[in-house]
């Protein structure tokens, strides 16, 4: 049997000890002596106290001690068959497109879960999902991940799972098995992490290699082209996959190029409607800028979407390759092309079909802040919801109640009974 609130036992033990000491103080009323001049005795007390070597009123003492101990044991929340463990684990398993090898992630997770502590596994990309340990293989069989990861969503899921685990463990340890790509962090991540009352153990796996160097544009873009600054960081490795950028609708030669395994990107960036402030998301990268929309038929795999869900770019498989139609018009003036977020989105939209934009690892400062210091697991009482957490006043109130009970005994012992 264990006690969930052992401090109550300690308080009860102190109270029982005090009770025994009180019973050692023998308070007795001397024999009555009729004295006509009693009125000249100062009226102070009617009992005499002296220390005794044996407690008086053994039966009464036993009842009182048992009463205090029983109350203390009740407040100590006894559990006959403990289902509560000392430690539980939450493992955040990264299955996003930033992961180089799912096998490595699963191996790390299995290494963590090999211990006896119960583990809750949450696989996450942009959406976290609970995974049974026995179903880890299903992640492997799902193929290579394509969705971007969100550490914020994963941490929120871990925090929610911890509330449930707090009832079954004294502390909860959080593991993150992830390459910790910079794309998985957003401005809310570290604030969400601050809500975890402990440190986070990082199991870092390999980051998916940057594929920018694995492809190139068929013809380099001039720097006055809105996409020119973005294309400067695109590799020029000879023999790598090649993307053909066309400004007009693809023609037969373009289709033949795609059918042979190439990628044709039809992006008429200069056309179109008047740019308006809008949001664009491509492969996990988001920009908000003055952009123009052009209607794109959603016939293949969506490569980018507007903020309202409308398709902004779509890959249409053609033979061994594909043709990508991009419905994003860029403003003729302004410095949008110089902004790094836009350049990331542009590179994503120019990348060959079947690839995703490579990612960079988060810097050490961010990782250190995510991990925290001390290496302690989060205590269960701090993981519970605030309304479920016992008030720190509870033990003091219990101690105060026991003190009052003892004081009541002392006052009653001193009070002179009314004569019959």
């Amino acid at each position, binding site marked *: 049997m264990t006690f969930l609130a052992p401090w109550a036992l300690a308080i009860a033990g102190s109270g029982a000890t005090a009770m025994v000491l009180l019973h050692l103080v023998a308070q007795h009323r001397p024999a*009555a*002596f009729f004295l*006509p001049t009693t009125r000249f*005795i100062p009226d102070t007390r009617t009992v005499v106290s002296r220390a005794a070597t044996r407690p008086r009123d053994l039966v009464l003492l036993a009842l009182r001690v048992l009463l205090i101990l029983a109350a203390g044991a009740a407040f100590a929340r006894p559990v006959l068959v403990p289902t509560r463990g000392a430690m539980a684990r939450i493992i955040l398993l990264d299955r996003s497109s930033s992961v180089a090898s799912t096998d490595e992630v699963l191996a790390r997770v299995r290494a963590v879960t090999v211990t006896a502590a119960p583990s809750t596994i949450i696989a996450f990309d942009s959406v976290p999902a609970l995974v049974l340990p026995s179903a880890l293989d299903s992640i492997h069989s799902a193929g290579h991940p394509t969705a971007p990861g969100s550490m914020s969503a994963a941490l929120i899921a871990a925090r929610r799972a911890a509330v449930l685990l707090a009832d079954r463990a004294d502390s909860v340890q959080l593991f993150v098995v992830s390459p910790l790509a910079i794309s998985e962090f957003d401005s809310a991540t570290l604030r969400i992490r601050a809500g975890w009352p402990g440190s986070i153990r990082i199991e870092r796996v390999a980051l998916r290699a940057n594929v920018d160097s694995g492809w190139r544009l068929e013809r380099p873009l001039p720097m006055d082209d809105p996409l020119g600054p973005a294309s400067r960081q695109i590799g020029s490795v000879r023999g790598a996959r090649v993307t053909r950028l066309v400004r007009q609708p693809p023609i037969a030669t373009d289709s033949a190029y795609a059918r042979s395994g190439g990628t044709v990107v039809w992006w008429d960036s200069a056309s179109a409607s008047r740019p308006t402030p809008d949001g664009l998301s491509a492969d996990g990268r988001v920009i908000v800028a003055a952009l123009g929309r052009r209607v794109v038929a959603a016939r293949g795999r969506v490569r980018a979407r507007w903020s309202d869900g409308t398709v902004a770019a779509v890959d249409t498989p053609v033979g061994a390759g594909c043709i990508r139609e991009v419905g994003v018009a860029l403003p003729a003036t302004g410095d949008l092309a110089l902004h790094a977020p836009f350049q990331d989105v542009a590179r994503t939209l120019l990348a060959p079909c079947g690839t995703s934009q490579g990612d960079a690892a988060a810097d050490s400062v961010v990782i250190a802040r995510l991990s925290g210091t001390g290496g302690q697991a989060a205590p269960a009482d701090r993981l519970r919801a605030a309304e479920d957490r016992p008030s720190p006043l509870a033990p003091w109130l219990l101690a105060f109640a026991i003190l009052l009970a003892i004081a009541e005994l002392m006052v009653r012992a001193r009070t002179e009974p*009314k004569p019959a």
Partner: protein
Amino acid sequence: MSAGPYGALLDAVRGVRWPAARRVMGATLGAHPSQLRGNSSEFSEFRPYRQGDDPRRLDWRLLARSDRAYVRLTTDRATLRTSMLVDASASMAFPTPAHDKWRLARELAIALAAVAHSEADPVGLAIAGAESLVFTPRARRSVLLEMIRALDATTPSGTRALAPLITSARASRLVVITDLLGDFDELLAAARLRIAARGEVIVIHVIADEELDPPPGSLLAVDPEQTAMRRILDGPMRTEYRASFTRWIDNTAAALRGAGVRYIRAQTSEPAPHVVRRIADGTPRRGG
């Protein structure tokens, strides 16, 4: 008359004279100087005849020899109605089981009554206890025996005010034998009235030795007249008790003397005949 156990006491006080504190008013021939001057045989002085004097009191022989009219004055003696008021409240039954205070009170009452009776004074008795008993002063021979029987038949108990009995007593000399633990203020007021009416009031304050020096050890003192009053008397309390009790005795004596009452303090360790002689001789001892 059989005095029973009081025989030795009566023998001890035989011959004691207990004169009145002042001339008494009374026509019955007795042992105390009277305020009246009449026809008794105890010549006092001559006084020139004045108009209005009784011609029968003229000394005719002197008139015949000297041709001067003188009236022959004599000193009259009268009896003094004396009454004993004995406090028989529960506080007099102390200490148990000897009841020394009550014993001393009885002996004093009987001894003083015997002394007064020996001078032909009518003596009366009032017992203030759970049940009051009043004997009006009488001079007959059996009165002392009746008093002994009444006192012996009484066991101190309850609480009874003394003041009404002081007011209603039909005696010129009133002896109050009490421990003064009852209605002291009322008693003092009644005594003042009686003294203002040319009465004589003697208060014998009966104090037990155990009251001055209670038995050692821790005691739960209980007032016999107010059993709800219970207080611990142990080492630290004892000194304060003694000081408080002594201060009260002194204040009480001063208050009674200030009212014209003759205050006599009698402790249970002092034999009753000694107290009687102190009263009769008018030489108080120890605050008396």
